[in-house]
C-alpha cells in the first residue's frame, strides 16, 4: 500500500506541474523568438517573396516587435492562419501575437478574450466587380452572386448591407483569399467582397487588373490591427507601444535612415523615444533602445506603408485615412513619455 500511495503522489505531482504559466514576454525570451500569426498570403500584407521569406505590412509589425524585444528583427517564426483558424490559434497560445488584418470589434475584444493593441490600418469593406458588368455602384448589385472568405466580419457586413438596401444576394464562402479569387475569376461569382485593401491586393495579382473595378461604396468601418491574448497586460503593452512608436517616429520625422543622427537630436521627445533619456524601455521591461531598434531595423510607419502598399508597389494604395492626423488622416498615437 505504501508503494501505491507513492505512485499516487508521483502521479498527482506530474499532473500538477504545468498549470502555472509564465508571462508571455518571459516565454518569448526563453524560447528566443516570437510566434507571429499572419495571413496565408495576401500581397502587400503578408506573402512570401521569391526567396520564401515572408514580407509585408503585417509582417513588419512583427519584425518591429522582434527588434524591440531582441534587438534583432528576425527572431520570428510565422504561423500562416486562415481567417477561421486565427482566433483559435491565438486563444490556445499557439501564437504570441496575431498581425493579420483583423478588424477590431467589441465581441472579439470582449467575448473572444483578446486585446487589440491599436489600429495599424483603417480600412472599410468594398466590392470588386468585372468592368464588363457595367456596374458603377454597389446599390446596383441586387441579385448578384458574391464570393467571400468565411470567418470574417465581411460576412456580417454583407448580410447587413444587402438587408438595409432591401436587396437579395447569393453567397459562396471559401477558406482562403486565393480560393475566393479563383472562384471570382472563373466567373461563378459576380462580386468579390472583402476589405478594400484586400481587394487592391487581389487586383494586383490577377492577370488583367484593368478589367476589374473596385466600387466606390465603403460599407463598413474596418479598423485593422494586431491583437494579443487578454490578461497579459505587460505583453499587450509591448505590442501597443511598438505600434505607437512606429507612428510617433513618423510624426517626429525619424526614419530608418536618419535614426542614428536623430539620436543626437535636441528634441526631448525624440531623445525619450530613442532611449537617450528617460526610462521608457525599462518601464516596458525592454532594453532602452527598443524603439531605436524597431525604427532602425524595420522603419517608421510611413516607410513600412510605402514599402509594401504605397505608390511604388503593385497595390498603389494611397495613404487616405492612414495618413498622420497632422496631414489629413486619422492616424494618431498617444505620446510616449
Amino acid at each position, binding site marked *: 500500500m505504501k508503494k501505491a500511495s507513492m505512485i*499516487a503522489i508521483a502521479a498527482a505531482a506530474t499532473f500538477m506541474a504545468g498549470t502555472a504559466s509564465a508571462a508571455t514576454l518571459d516565454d518569448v525570451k526563453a524560447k528566443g523568438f516570437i510566434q507571429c500569426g499572419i495571413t496565408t498570403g495576401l500581397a502587400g500584407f503578408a506573402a512570401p517573396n521569391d526567396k520564401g521569406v515572408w514580407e509585408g505590412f503585417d509582417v513588419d509589425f512583427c519584425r518591429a516587435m522582434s527588434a524591440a524585444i531582441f534587438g534583432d528583427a528576425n527572431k520570428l517564426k510565422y504561423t500562416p492562419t486562415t481567417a477561421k483558424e486565427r*482566433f483559435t490559434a491565438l486563444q490556445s497560445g499557439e501564437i504570441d501575437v496575431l498581425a493579420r488584418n483583423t478588424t477590431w470589434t467589441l465581441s472579439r475584444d470582449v*467575448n473572444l478574450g483578446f486585446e487589440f493593441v491599436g489600429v495599424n490600418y483603417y480600412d472599410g469593406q468594398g466590392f470588386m466587380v468585372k468592368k464588363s458588368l457595367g456596374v458603377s455602384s454597389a446599390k446596383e448589385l441586387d441579385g448578384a452572386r458574391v464570393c467571400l472568405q468565411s470567418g470574417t466580419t465581411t*460576412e*456580417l457586413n454583407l448580410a447587413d448591407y444587402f438587408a438595409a438596401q432591401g436587396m437579395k444576394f447569393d453567397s*459562396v464562402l471559401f477558406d482562403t483569399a486565393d480560393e475566393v479569387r479563383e472562384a471570382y475569376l472563373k466567373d461563378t461569382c*459576380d462580386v468579390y467582397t472583402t476589405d478594400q485593401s484586400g481587394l487592391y491586393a487581389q487586383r494586383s495579382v490577377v492577370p488583367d487588373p484593368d478589367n476589374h473595378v473596385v466600387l466606390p461604396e465603403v460599407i463598413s468601418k474596418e479598423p485593422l490591427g494586431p491583437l494579443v491574448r*487578454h490578461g497579459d497586460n505587460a505583453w499587450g503593452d509591448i505590442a501597443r507601444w511598438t505600434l505607437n512608436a512606429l507612428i510617433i517616429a513618423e510624426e517626429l520625422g525619424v526614419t530608418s535612415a536618419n535614426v542614428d543622427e536623430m539620436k543626437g537630436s535636441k528634441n526631448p521627445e525624440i531623445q525619450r523615444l530613442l532611449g537617450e533619456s528617460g526610462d521608457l524601455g525599462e518601464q516596458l521591461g525592454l532594453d532602452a533602445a527598443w524603439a531605436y531598434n524597431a525604427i532602425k531595423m524595420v522603419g517608421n510607419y510611413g516607410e513600412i506603408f510605402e514599402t509594401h502598399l504605397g505608390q511604388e508597389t503593385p497595390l498603389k494604395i494611397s495613404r487616405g485615412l492612414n495618413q498622420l492626423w497632422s496631414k489629413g488622416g486619422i492616424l494618431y498615437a498617444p505620446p510616449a513619455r
Partner: protein
Amino acid sequence: MTADVPGMSEGAKVSPFRDPKVRALFFQILVIVTFLAFVYYIADNTITNLEKRGIASGFDFLSQNSGFDIGIVLFVDYNAQTSTHGDVLLIGIINTLAVSLSGIVLATIIGFVFGVLRLSNNWLVNKIASVYIEVVRNIPLLVQLLFWYLAVLLELPNVRESAKIGESIALNNRGLYFPSIVPEAGFWLIPVAFAVGIIATIFVSRWAHKRQDETGQPFPVISTGFGLILGLPIVAALVMGLPFGFEYPAMGRFNISGGWVVKPEFMALFLGLSIYTGGFIAEIVRSGINAVSHGQTEAANSLGIKPNITMRLIIIPQALRVIIPPLTSQYLNLTKNSSLATAIGYSEIVAIFAGTSLNQTGQAIEIIALTMLFYLTISLIISVFMNWYNSRIALVER
C-alpha cells in the same frame, strides 16, 4: 477461498497484499482513479484557462443572432437578420446529411456496377473498370474535389452563355437550373398516393414470397412495384386535374432566379465523394463476389437456372455477407469526408458551424464538441443500421 486449494486450510488468513483478488481489485481501482484524475485535470485546466483569458463559455450562443448568409439552405427558413447559430447548426446538419445520403446512394450504384464489370470476361469492359478503380482510389479526395469544382464545374459556360435545353433548363458554372413545381389545391393526394404505392409494394412482395414458397410460382415483384410507386401518383395527379404549376427560371441582371437550382458546390462534392468512394466499393463488391465459391454458379447452371437469376438470387446474397461489413466503413468514410467541402464552398456543418459560427462566437470547445457529437451520432446510426442489415442477411443455420 476454497478448502481444497493445496496448502490452504479453511479460514486461513492470506495477507491481502498477496491475495490475487484484492490485488486485481486494487489495480482496477487504481486505473479508474488515474483515468478520472486525468479527465478532471484536463477539464479543470481548460475551465481555468478559459476563465483566465476571459473567454465566455456555455451554450447560450446557440440562441444568438447569426448575422451571416448561407449559400445553400434546404427546408429551413433562414434569414441572416433573425436566425440564430442554432439554425446554422441545423442547416449544417441538413446539408451534411443531404450530401452524405445522396452520395451513399450514388457511390453504392457506381460501386456495384463497376465491381461487377471488373469481373467481366470482356477485356475492354474489364480494363475500363480497373482503370477507373485504380485512378480514383489512388488520388487524394481533396484533389479530386478541387478537380471537379475548379476544373470541371467552374469551366462550364458562364451565366450569360448558359447551355440550354429548351427554354426552361439551363446549365452554367453557377448551377443547373430547372423549373420548380409549385403545388396548388389538391396537391396533397400525390405524396399520399406515393406512400400508398410504397406500402402496397411491400405487401405485394410479401404475398409473392409466400405464394412462391407454397406453389413455386414466381411473381414479377419488381415491375409491379415500379408500376405501383410511379403509377399511383400519376393517377392521383390526373384525378385531381394536375394540381401544380411550374415556376420557370429567368435571367435577371446578374443571375438566373426562380425555379430550382443545383449549385456547383453541391455537385462537386456529390460527384467527388461518390466517384471516390465508388472505387473502393467496387473492390469490395468484387472481393465479395469472388469469395462465393465457383461451385455455386456451376451448381445453379446445372439446375438450369438463368444467369441473371443465378447472380441475383444465389451469388449476390452470399456475396453480401462478405460485402456488408467493409461497405459500412465506406459509408462512414463518405459521411466524414463530406467535411472537406469547406475547400469548395459547400455549406455543410464544418464549413458554416465549426467555421463561421465558431469564428463569430469564439466558442471553440462547445462548437467542436457539438460537431464531433453530430458526426459520432450519424456514424453510429449508420453502423447500427448496417449491423442490423448484416445480421438479417447473415447465413441462417438450420
